[in-house]
């Protein structure tokens, strides 16, 4: 009972949030020092984060494990504090002003959930392709590169490109698409984009097929976070304007 009470007061404390934020900053700072000095981090994007962390030596990943633990505690602290605040202040007059920080917190939780999903179930695969190359991407679906077009200016700078692809199932064309800079091809939950291009001695592209299960959660989290932040700023500035009228 005593331990339960202590745990609850730990999770309900703003002081906990502050110290957890301090610890998280220290862990990421350690990561920022470790990361550039170890070659192993070159492969961090080749597989889901947790899978990568499992196969690497703990000597270089300890700060990531510690950050995950701190983020779990911070999420619990955020949730508990938000729930308590809503319960305590439910009868307050400036309800929107009091609820907007909690909306910000919900957005933050969504973003963390997005990272968790992508770190657990994300997928990435690379392949070098030329015009005519056919790649199996999901089950019996095959993606064929129809054409690669590179626009190069007289000084030799790449100014634009496009890649036409088609998806085939059992030999029949299911869908056609054009990949452009900042316009990937989305097919059955997969994001197919061009990572690199080569013009000489022959046209070739480095394709990346990825799946980010957290992407929509991250977007939703971002929108909620900003909605809360902007509401908070607008309401606070209105309140301070009203206050300054009285002073």
């Amino acid at each position, binding site marked *: 009972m005593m331990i339960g009470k202590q745990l609850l007061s730990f999770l309900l404390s*703003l*002081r906990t*949030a*502050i110290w957890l*934020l*301090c610890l*998280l*900053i220290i862990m*990421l*700072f350690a*990561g*920022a020092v470790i*990361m*550039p000095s170890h070659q192993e*981090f070159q492969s*961090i*994007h080749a597989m889901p*984060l947790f899978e990568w962390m499992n196969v690497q030596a703990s000597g270089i990943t300890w700060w990531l494990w510690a950050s995950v633990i701190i983020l779990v505690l911070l999420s619990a602290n955020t949730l508990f504090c938000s729930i308590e605040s809503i319960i305590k202040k439910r009868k307050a007059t400036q309800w929107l002003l009091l609820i907007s920080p909690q909306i910000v917190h919900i957005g933050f939780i969504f973003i963390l959930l*997005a*990272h968790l999903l*992508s770190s657990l179930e*994300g997928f*990435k695969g690379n392949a070098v392709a030329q015009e005519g190359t056919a790649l199996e991407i999901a089950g019996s679906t095959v993606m064929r590169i129809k054409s690669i077009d590179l626009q190069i*200016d007289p*000084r030799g*700078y*790449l*100014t*634009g*490109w496009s890649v036409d692809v088609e998806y085939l199932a059992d030999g029949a064309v299911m869908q056609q698409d054009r990949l452009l*800079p*900042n*316009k*990937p091809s989305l097919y059955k939950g997969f*994001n*197919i*984009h061009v*990572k690199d291009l080569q013009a000489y001695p022959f046209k070739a592209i480095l394709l*990346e097929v*990825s799946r*980010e299960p*957290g*992407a929509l959660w*991250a*977007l939703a989290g*971002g*929108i909620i*976070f*900003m909605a809360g*932040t*902007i509401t*908070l*700023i607008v309401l*606070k*500035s209105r309140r301070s304007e009203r206050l300054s009228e009285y002073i």
Partner: protein
Amino acid sequence: MLLAFAAFPFYLFSLWKRPLLYVGLALQIAYIISRGLTLGRLPLVGPHDTLTFLSASMIAFSLPFHRRLREHLQYYSWIALLAALFTVFALVAKQHNTPLPPVLKTLWFELHVVLAFLSYALFGIAAVLGALYLKRHDSLLESMQYRSILIGYCFFSLSMIFGGIWAYLAWGTYWLWTPKELWTSILWLFYSLYLHARLRQEWMGRPSAIIGIAGFAVVLFTYLGVSLLMKSSHSF
């Protein structure tokens, strides 16, 4: 190039004649617009352009605080000195006059960069206000520092969200583990820490003012230090 330099003496001489600050700002804005027209794009790639934009943004954002800070003349002097310093750095930095890589030709990139530098400018102003608060102990300065950081935090968060959308469209992921992203997270967490710490009585005033000042050191390292010393997705 003469127009790029023109703002510098006006910022310096504004230490004695404050209206010169506005002349300097007008010249710097004219330079940014002329460069944008020459290049046919938003001139915000490379340290020359971004430092110029940061300098102009600092001056522009410092003006709305004018009404409340009439008694703190040092506020303008420090902002003008910082802007002059960034202008000098911009002048010695190499201009990026080559065509943009195709991946940068998107509104998401433009929003991402513009908002990031507007937030940096607000964090810079907050650092000046924090330093003045430590010297003068006027709670108005501390309250202005808080406002500056809150709006800067909003811009910075928006910049990160737009950056995430852009990265997803360009590279299939909204997050990349590179030193720049890591330092960006440290910066965002640092100002999150400021906003939370300031809610506690014992952290209000001097401690939070110091965090606000230290935050700008993190800004400068994230912006200049990481870009110059480490390889990242932000090097083009």
